[in-house]
């Protein structure tokens, strides 16, 4: 019985370890993702925010999009290793119907 118990624990560790490692790696990737903060003019309503979320969300490089209406900012998290130029950010803001004021980059 002790042999079975030891074998079971060993098997469980073998199965769980890679999963646990993968989760750690994912967390690592997310924390290393580059965030772009685009300050825009004209984004005064919830629907405006939805427009930029839709447009930025279609970009391959974009992991997630968040909007701060109070600050007039679009916060874009990029996928690991992905990049997006300031010019492209400006195009996407324009395509959404708003005007880009500035772009800040933040690498966590």
């Amino acid at each position, binding site marked *: 019985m002790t042999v079975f118990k030891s074998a079971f624990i060993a098997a469980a560790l073998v199965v769980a370890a890679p999963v646990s490692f993968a989760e750690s790696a994912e967390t690592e990737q997310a924390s290393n993702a580059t965030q772009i903060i685009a300050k*825009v003019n004209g984004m005064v309503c919830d629907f405006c925010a*939805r427009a930029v979320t839709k447009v930025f969300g279609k970009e391959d490089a974009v992991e997630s999009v968040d909007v701060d209406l109070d600050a007039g900012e679009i916060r874009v998290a990029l996928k690991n290793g992905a990049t997006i130029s300031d010019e492209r950010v400006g195009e996407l803001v324009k395509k*959404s119907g708003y005007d880009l004021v500035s772009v800040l980059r933040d690498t966590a």
Partner: protein
Amino acid sequence: MSRFCYFLCVALLALFLGQTADARPVSYPEGWTIMQHNNGDFSSAHVHYSPTFQDSFGIYSERNWANDWQFTGVQYNRLVKRWNTSDSQANLYFKLGAGQADAFGDSDESLAGFVDISADWETRRWFLAYDARAYDLGFDQDFRQFARLGVAPYIGDYGDLHTWLMVQVDHDPESDTPVTATPLIRFFYDVQLLEIGYTPETDRFMLNWIIRL
């Protein structure tokens, strides 16, 4: 077709198309919009697709109970100009419709069309809008305009339920009551907008809704 059947058909159409605001006549690129307006004088339904944030194409149907006619056709909406500032947005729109119309009780249909110009200005607290529309129905001409003022009693964050208190003043020279004022409340949540109002002069309710997909 009775008013109830008309409302029901449009509601079923919306449900069929999807469960998925803002009253602007254009959406975000590749966005679909379904909107319906009812105010006692007329009921309308408009479904449109926006290839860009400046244009939308769609179909428009209106039953005008005040002036006894109905119109069905295609509609093009154009954002002529947008002014963006750090705390406001203003828009100027042009709309064009072409189709056919007939008077109630008359089976003859006429080629018909309309032109519409509208403008709005909005901050997170205040809202102003104006719209004027002129119809050529073939057998008659029609004109109406309205202005609207709104205030948000609280400023919600992105994703919250947004509420606006508004008053709309309508002018329809052909109507039995040419000038009316309608206090209304607007709820805007996710991609859905609902407006409920009441017009004391005519003892009629307003019910507008918009869904963006």
